[in-house]
Structures are given as C-alpha cells and as structure tokens.
C-alpha cells in the first residue's frame, strides 16, 4: 500500500478572534498582530495574550494605515496616533477643534499624512508639520514610495503634493467624486476609486516629453 500524506489545510492554522467591534484595519506593527477597532481601541498581541489599548476613547477610531513598524490611527476625537509593537500609543497630532480625521496615510520612511475636511497635514520623521487647504474634501491619501510626495483623492480628480516644497500641488483632473487613492510601487501610476462604480488611473510621465495618460476602468 502506498500511503498518501494528507495535505495540510490552511484552516488548521487559523485562529478565530472575536474583536467585539467593527475592525477598521489589521496590521503587524513590529511583527505583532494588531486590530484597529471602531470602538476606539487597538487589540494587540497574539491570540490568548491580547491587550485592548484604548486609543481614541468613545469618539471612535475612524481610519488607520500601517507600515512594517507601526500602526497609525485617526479618530473622531481629532487625534492622530501611532502605535508600535510595545503598544504604547503616541499622539502625533491633536486637532484643536476635534474634527473627524477623514483619511490617514503612513510611509515606511516615517512620513504620516492625515486630513480633516479640506485640510491636509503631513508630518515627516523629524516632526515637521506642513498643511494645505484644498478646494474640496480630501477623501483619500497615499504616499509615493519614497515618502516625499503625497497623492490626495478629492472631488473632480487627485492632487500630487510635495509637502517640503513651495510648489503648488499638481492637479490630475477627472470629473466626479474620487474616494480613495493608491500608488503603484514604481510610483508611475495613480489609481483612484470613484463614487460611481469605477476606478480611474493616471500614468505619470517618465520623461518631460510625455503627457499624463488616463485609464478608465468602469464596472
């Protein structure tokens, strides 16, 4: 008789977890599993050894972004916080008016960006803050790979902004409401999701003679 080894099932390695609240994001800051929860807490640690860390309290945790090193959260309390493997939350910023943090983005290079309504703020690894005001609400944020340039999705297009220069943001126009944005790993493509069931993409020029090219993806 030939015995066939039973193939290992992936489900044997799955541990169900009851987070007790809507999960906004899952991340591995410093290699430790972390769940960002809508009730304002972060659940940190391996199953059985978890801790609930209250980050935003009753105002709720609204948005989160992560890098290999940390989890960055934005709350209904107007605060942006960062949390690493130790679970000690550090406040990056506190909005004096306590407005909802609508979007947050984090770059592995240490830059963080967030928005409240039309105002977008960045904080680099040295803690320097830069702010711009857009003509419509910033719906989604994404850093280019090097962490120097930020893409912002908004009504009627996306803006590409270098926070450390005086140059006004480059405007990529496309009519409609753009809800979120992501950047390809080579930094050449910007793709937004839209209020209509569609994605819109832009290919950025790689040399001065090239023009921005559009990609329409409706579904």
């Amino acid at each position, binding site marked *: 008789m030939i015995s066939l080894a039973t193939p290992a099932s992936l489900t044997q390695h799955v541990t169900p977890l009851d987070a007790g609240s*809507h999960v*906004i994001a899952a991340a591995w800051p410093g290699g430790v599993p972390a769940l960002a929860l*809508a*009730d304002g807490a972060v659940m940190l640690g391996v199953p059985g050894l978890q801790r609930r860390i209250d980050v935003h*309290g*009753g*105002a*709720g945790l*609204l948005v989160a972004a992560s890098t290999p090193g940390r989890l960055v959260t934005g709350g*209904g309390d107007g605060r942006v916080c960062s949390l690493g493997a130790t679970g000690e939350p550090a406040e990056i910023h506190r909005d004096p*008016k306590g*407005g*909802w943090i*609508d979007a947050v983005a984090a770059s592995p290079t240490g830059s963080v960006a967030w928005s409240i*309504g*039309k105002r977008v703020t960045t904080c680099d690894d040295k803690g320097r803050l830069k702010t711009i005001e857009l003509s*419509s*609400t910033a*719906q989604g944020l994404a850093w280019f790979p090097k962490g120097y340039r930020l893409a912002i999705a908004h*009504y009627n297009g996306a803006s590409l902004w270098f926070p450390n220069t005086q140059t006004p943001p480059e405007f990529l126009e496309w*009519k*409609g*409401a753009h809800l979120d944005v992501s950047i390809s790993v080579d930094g050449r493509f910007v793709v937004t999701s*839209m*209020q*209509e069931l*569609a994605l819109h993409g832009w290919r950025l020029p790689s040399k001065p003679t090239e023009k921005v090219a559009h990609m329409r993806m409706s579904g």
Partner: protein
Amino acid sequence: MSDKIPVTVLTGYLGAGKTTLLNRILSEPHGKKYAVIVNEFGEIGIDNDLVVGADEEVFEMNNGCICCTVRGDLIRIIDGLMKRKGKFDAIIVETTGLADPAPVAQTFFMDQDVGDRARLDAVVTVADAKWLTERLKDAPEAKNQIAFADVIILNKTDLVTPAELDAVEATIRAINPAAKLHRTTKCALPIADVLDRNAFDLDRILDIEPDFLEEGHHHHHAEDIRSMSFEIRGDVDPDKFMPWIQDLTQVKGGDILRCKGILAFRNEPKRFVFQGVHMILDGDLQRDWRADETRVSRAVFIGRNLDREEIKKGFFATAA
C-alpha cells in the same frame, strides 16, 4: 428594512428655529441616543461623542446631469457612524439655511452603502411664520425646503396675527399640499411628531388630502414652485403608467423636486406606492386595498416650470 437606522433631515431657513428644535430633541428625556450631523459646532448645547461636523459637499454624478447629486460628506459620515452601530438609535442631519434638501434625499437612493444601512425617515422643515413669505420671494433655497418637506413646523406663530398665519399657511400649501404641518411657538411640539415618522416608508406615505386635489387647489401663481395633484377614479394600467412616469422623470427630472403617488393597478389587489426625487424613482406594491376603500389612483408632483395640462393629460392617459 427594520434594522436600518432612521435618519431625520432638519432643514429651515436661517433663524427659523432649527437649533431650538434640535436642542429640544437632544435634551428631552426620551431614552434615545442620537448621532447628530451639524454644520456649526458649538450651536448645540449637548456634549456628545456622536456630534459630527459636516461641510455640505455636493457631488454631481458622472452622468452629466446636474440634478443627479449626492452629499459626499454624508456618505463618509454615515459610513463612519455605522461602524459604531449600537451606540445610537437614530441619526439627525441638520442642514444650513442655504442647503438644498434634494442631494441629501438622493444620497439615500443613489449610494448603495448608505441605502443599505440607513433609511431617510423624514425631511422636517422649520419655517418662520413672520418671515417665510419674504424668504420665499428672494431665496430659492427656502422654497426648496418647503417643497421637500414631509413635516413642516410653522414656528414663531406668536409673532403674527391669525390672518397672517392663515395666509402663510396657504402659501405653504400652494407649494406643498402633502406635508404634515404643525403650528408652534419655540418649536414646542411632541418629539414624536418630528422623529420616527416613516414618511419615506412607502407603505405610510402620506395620504394626499382630497382638499388639494384639482378643484380645491390653491392657485398662487406668484410661486414658481407649484404642486399639482391628480386623481383617477379607478385603476391605471401599469404597462402605460410605468413607461410614462419613467419618461417624465427622465425628461423633466431637473424640474420635478418630488413626486408621490398611490395607485390602483388593474387586477392588482395591493396598492402601488411610488415616490421620486428628481430623476430617481422608487416604487413598490404595498398593503392590500381595504374593503372600505375606493380604488383610486392619485399622484402629486411638486416642481418648477411644470406644465400642468401636459402632466394631467399624460397621467389620465394611463387609466385602465
């Protein structure tokens, strides 16, 4: 649909008493918890984690039509609130005096995520008895707010004479004959008259007052927003009615602010109830016609530049 969170939209021109009403709703002991979407922080005197600032950002949809709009901020905020479901019983959206209620209402029909999780309970408009007539002359927003209302609170009635009050009520009725109207001072009325109205629930859509049908109709030609209501004594043919109403709302959608109706379809024991906001139409078969009810088909249209004779002819041509 019962697990959808009810949303009450509070409109009214500046100074009419919206904030008074909101503070009353939030401070009275009714045992309910509300999430409140406001425009100006600090105007409401209640400390609440669930008070959110909004910017009334209107998105036009990408179909090139200016009447197809949604409130982008509302989509974002309702999405954020729904992740904390269980912490509140209902949502109240306060709009500024200059806001057009149409995009707010359309958001519940045009954004699937919002429509799946929340339902528009009623548009409640607070009107100032002393100044409304003036505002209707110079502020198109004030007219839209009256036209859109399911509930109208005619406030500050102590500042006008009984004759003036009747006159302003007649003006309101010329624009919107189908809303529930309450006369108040300091917005004092039972909260149940404002919240959980189910006015957008098709089964409970307000019955159209016969007084406002055709002959009883008030003619205030000074208003560019008019309401018109028609009644067919008997059934309509759905194969004629559906294409007609779809075509009408496609062509005239920009001018039709709202439409509502209850119809008797030929060979159909249930009442067909429909309503629309601009081009968006929603309709469904609801409860059976009761034995003591006469099968009649009624429709109301509220809008600008509507040709009454043309709509009347079109509607009557759908009779079975």
